[in-house]
Structure formats: structure tokens, C-alpha cells
């Protein structure tokens, strides 16, 4: 069973899958995210982003710092809907109104 090498623990993406997709031409983090879900799990790419970028870099010859890293959106960790549901819409409005003052 331990033949699998994972690059993304959350979404269980193996290095073979990743390399195959890169070979097929998906060479940006966002493309790979859409096709494989890397970085879409609960850790939001904290664990896998660099491994994925390094693989892209290795395959394409483009240094990591020239690669696009994809989008970062809040929240960066899972949060239950229950907590959000407890939030009063007015709470958020307070901030908006303050901003307009």
C-alpha cells in the first residue's frame, strides 16, 4: 500500500498524477488546482504549494520565482458555517459604515 508518494496530503494528489498533468500542459498552479484540487484542501496549499511549483519548474525549466503561485483567498483555514451563521450582518456593516465616514 505504500507505493504512493504524495505532494498534497489533504487532497491526496500523488507525484505521478501531478507530473502527468504537467506533461499534459497544465503548467500553472491555478490550472493544476482546477484539475487536481491541489491546494484546495483544508491546509489551503501551505504544505504542497512549493512542492508543486518545484515540479513545474523542473518540467518547464522556468525558475520558481517566475511562476504564478495562484490565488489566495480568505479564509485560509476551515471555519464552520455555524460560526459564520452566528455573525450578525450588522456586525459587518459597522465596519463598512465606519469606512465610509
Amino acid at each position, binding site marked *: 500500500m*505504500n507505493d*504512493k508518494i504524495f505532494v498534497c496530503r489533504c487532497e491526496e494528489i500523488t507525484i505521478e498524477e501531478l507530473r502527468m498533468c504537467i506533461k499534459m500542459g497544465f503548467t500553472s498552479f491555478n490550472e493544476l488546482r482546477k484539475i487536481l484540487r491541489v491546494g484546495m484542501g483544508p491546509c489551503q496549499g501551505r504544505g504542497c504549494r*512549493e512542492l508543486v511549483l518545484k515540479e513545474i519548474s523542473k518540467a518547464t525549466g522556468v525558475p520558481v520565482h517566475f511562476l504564478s503561485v495562484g490565488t489566495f483567498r*480568505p479564509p485560509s483555514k476551515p471555519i464552520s458555517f455555524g460560526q459564520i451563521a452566528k455573525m450578525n450582518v450588522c456586525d459587518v456593516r459597522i465596519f463598512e459604515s465606519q469606512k465610509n465616514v
Partner: protein
Amino acid sequence: MHVINDHPILKFERGRKVQFYHDGKLMEWYENDPIAVALQANGVKILSYSKRFHRPRGFFCAIGKCSSCFMRVDGLPNVRTCITPLREGMRIETQHGIGEFLEDTPSDVIDQLGQPLIVETEVLVIGAGPAGLSTCLEAADLGCQVTLVDESLELGGQLIKQTHKFFGSSEDFAGIRGVKIAEILREKLIPYTVSGKLTIFSNTSAIGYYAKEDVVLCTQGEKRIILIKPKAVVVSSGAMEKLIPFSGNDLPGVYGAGAVQTLMNVYGVLPGKKVLMVGAGNIGLIVSYQLLQAGVKVAAIVELAPRVGGYWVHASKVQRLGVPILLQHTVKGAVGEKQVEGAWIQQVDEEGRFVGAEKFVDCDTICLAVGLTPTVDLLWQAGCEMVYVADLGGYVPKRDWTLRTSNPKFWIAGDASAIGEATTAMLEGRIAGLSVSKALGKVSESFFKNKCEEYWTRLNELRMAETCERLRKGLQFALSGNFPITVQSSEEKSQIFNEETYADAFDKRTVQSIIPPMDLWKKRKGGLVIIECPQRIPCDPCHVSCPTGAILPFQNINDLPSVDYSKCTGCAMCVAACPGLACFVADMTGEQAILKLPYEMSPIPKEGNVVACLDRSGRELARSKVRKVQEPRRDRTFVVHVQVPKELVMLVRALKVIEDE
């Protein structure tokens, strides 16, 4: 058993013992420890099964960053059990795949969720490690209203796991153990929390920055939302352990080094019985030493690079206790069905290709210390200009010399800005706190400039060490703007230091260079000091602790120690003070030599105990009886006197208590 009861350095103050259920089975552990720790102590390594391949999963980071420890707790799925405290009667269940509520989940699970809280503050500090705590101290001291959020249950970040004494300057915290530094910093915060200048939310994760609303979203204990509206944000969120690809790298028993430290040094629970350490940087070396202190065997340390990345003295500490460091080796695969039962390692050549035969290592834990990645999600969300610098650990924000990022509301400090170490993180925290205070108009321009230069001078000095070469190089890409103080790079390398010395301790030439003058040595009662410190690192406790001035003052804190042997009395204060355990004393006046060796292991030897005398690679050279045991600084570093034949004086560097005799 998985529980540490006898530790040479630490005492575990455990809370009340409570009962809880794991998958219906009754278990016991101490209240308020994280759930994942309670389970590990009860021998449970599998916390969940993955959603795609249904593979067993344990925890990995133990600091709430990787989300590998999700379980269902009292009906609530996806609870990060590594940072959720244990309570009496908790029902903890293995999670299968995506977390689900039970059909009969009582509705009060939702009712237990707290009302959201809205907090307005001048300065929000994210992360209570050495950098964050120092930021709080500086900013609160200069009159800012500060709010601190931290994910863990206990403030101090990685400091609370460090049993070793710190390097650096004795003016700061050199010679003091990390755990103690965390205590000191926490105590310093008390006046500010009492006066209301500082508000602390622990067990609280900052998980989002919403630019439009200009608010930082936090969640406390997965139970309630805290919305924080700050005037300035200092991100000192630290870093997360890197994962490397090898087969079975998701098996329970593959842990990040930080997780292993949390388990054994904060909660007194062992990760396993025999560990393979991956990585010979400072973290890999320090954690290996800590494992030995906790009574765990370290099968080997494998390191991909052709040299040890960490301090020479750290490497020597583990080597002389018999742990082999295999350079140009890496882990190829984990063995085991449900948890780690061994590992395959293999040699690599200069280009990183596998060569030679695979070797099997018998172990139940694979500890990854292969580097850290700065935790910078919030800075990405805040639109800060980021730059990928491999030498700093990955993506880091561009910052000016006041540690302000390109988003004028955000500052950075500590590992989140560049992977470094705690002493420099504390100074960065000071700079960030000062800079924030300046931005909020609390201090004058001239005060700010003077203080900032003072901090930078100290920071630069600490970063002149040989081992900081990559950091210095990396910072050039991350620091921007007019910089009044140059980051000095020290081209000077130690004369006698030779990278090959790692292979098997010292070569003859190096040994010659540290032998005290023979004519004096033969007649000096009490002995003379032998200092095995061949690498330029920032450290001065040997000089500061020397009562006779024999260890000369340092021109630069990175200099190698030099000794005026005529003043040395062999008092062994330096033996007890040296954070690298690199000072030894030998008295050559008797029939046999008396060696005074530093000792921080269990059990503490007593006068008359038989001990094995070990050389620099852990080989037993002789057996001897303990003549005397001292604890000069009352800080759990013992100085043990043993009698050895004179010809072994430059060979014996450690001892092991023979328990059965």
C-alpha cells in the same frame, strides 16, 4: 509506554486527569492537553482516514497548520485535535473522509458556538512566538494598544519546546534554555495585560484579511468568530514544516520535527521508540538530541546535502552519543500498513540521483526536519508584494528596513519573514514593534532612528555567523528601499574549521590546535580547559561565565574563543555554561587524568556509578567510576568528573551511565 516520567531537564506539570471516549473506548489523560496528544499517550496514532484512498492519517505539524488531525469531537466534525484541549467526558471519534455530522448530532453543538466578538485595536500581532511576544513588549512599552492572537494553547511559539540553551549574546538570552526564555517573556507581558495595554486571545487563529472591510477574521477554538479591526498588523505567524516526497509520506508516524518537540517537550509524550531523523540542519540536530534526552533511540540522521547544515557543536553533541549522521543520504520510503514500521534510505550523488543499494532502517517514527516554509497566507491576502527566495524558506514578503511590507498596514517579523532562529526573531520583533509605534505616532523620529539602528547592529552581528550565509544572501532579495545599515557579510572563515571534520569528529591538526600548553597542563591542579568550538557562530557564554577571565573577551561575537591558560583554574563554569556543550576540563596532575564533562541526559549519575566513556563518535573507550557530580549553575547541566587514562584525555568526550551494574 508512551509517557515520559523522568526527564533530565523538564518537569511536566500535568493538570487534572479526566476520562474521555475514543470511538467508544474509555481512556484517561490530563485535562487541557490537546486531544491528539491524549490519544498518542494512549497509543492511538490513527486519527482519521483520508477521503480519497481511505488511508490512515495521524497528525503532522501539531501546531494547527496542516489540518491532518481532523476528528469528530462531541459530534462536531473537522476539529483540529492538535490544538483543541481535552475536556472531561469528550467523545472523540475517528473521522472517515470528509467530516460529517451524525444524524443524531444534538442541536446544542451549534448552540455551544459563541457569539462573535468585534475588537478594535491599534496593533494586531499574529503569533506569540519569540518574534510576536517581543513585538508586543516593544509596542506596548511604547504606548500602543496591542491585541495578540495565537493559535496554540500556550504562548511562546516554538520556544516552549526548546530544552537546549540558546546561543547569541549573554546580554540577551544566551546560555538560557528556550523553555525558560518563553517563561521570561510571558512574565514580562503581565504588567501590560494587567494595565489593559495588551489583550491576548490564545487558541485563536487569524485566518483571513478582508481588504474591503479592512478586518482580520479570527476563529477562537473553532467555537466563535473574532473580527479584529486594527490600525496596524504585525504578522509573526512563524513557519510550517516542509514535506518531502517519498513513498508513504502520509503514514501516521511521519511527523514534522516541531510536532515531535511539542509532543515530548511540552506534553511529555513520546512520538515512538526509535526515530529516523531526516535533515541535519539545526532543527534536525537539536531534535535528535532532545529525543535522546527523552529516552528515545535515534537510529540515524540522514542529510541530502554533502555537509551538515546546523552548528558543528550541535552535530557533535549527537554524534558523541552514538547517533550516525549519514550525509548525502535521504529517505526513500516509509514501511508499514497502518503506521511507520521502518524506512528505506538511500545514498544520493552530487546531482541528487539515487546511487548504491537501499538500506533498511528499523524505526517507528520518521521525523522530518527538512526545512520550514514561512506562513504568509495573510500577507498574500493583503496583497503584499511577495518574492520567492529559496534561501529564506520560500515565498516571503518584500520589506523595508523597518520590516514594513508593501502594504503599509502590514509588518513582519520572525520566521514568517525568513527562516532564522529565535534570537534574531526576538530582535526582529523589537524592530517591528518599534516601527509600528513610529507609524502610529507614538515615538519621535530621532528616538526611532537611534533605537532601530541599535537593533539592526545587534541583528547584523548575530547574522555574521558562518551558518547564516544563505540567510544573508537571501535577505538581499527581500529587503528593499534605502537601507541605512548594510547587512554585513563576513567572508572570514574559521582557520581550523574543516567541513570534513563532520565525517568523524576531529582530524589531528584540529586536535593539536586545541590542546592546552603541555608544561602548564602537567602541573595545574584542577586542570585546564579544552574548547572544541571550531566554527564561527554568535555565542559568548563561555567568556561571560568565566570567573577568572581566562576565556578572553570577544571582539566580534562570532569569534572563536581564545584562552589565556595561565588564568584557567579548571573550575568548569564554562563546561556548565556552554550552550554547545563544547567546553571540557582535564586535570593531568594525578596518576590518571580527571575529565570534567558536561552532561544533560537521564539518569543523572551519582558518585561511584560505573559509566562508559565515549569518544566523539560514541564508541566506548573505557569504563570508569564517577568521582564527583556538580550542577554549577543549578540549571540541569551537570559537570561529571571521571577518571580516565591520560592517553584518552583528547578522545573521551561523553559518558553513558551503565544502568545494570
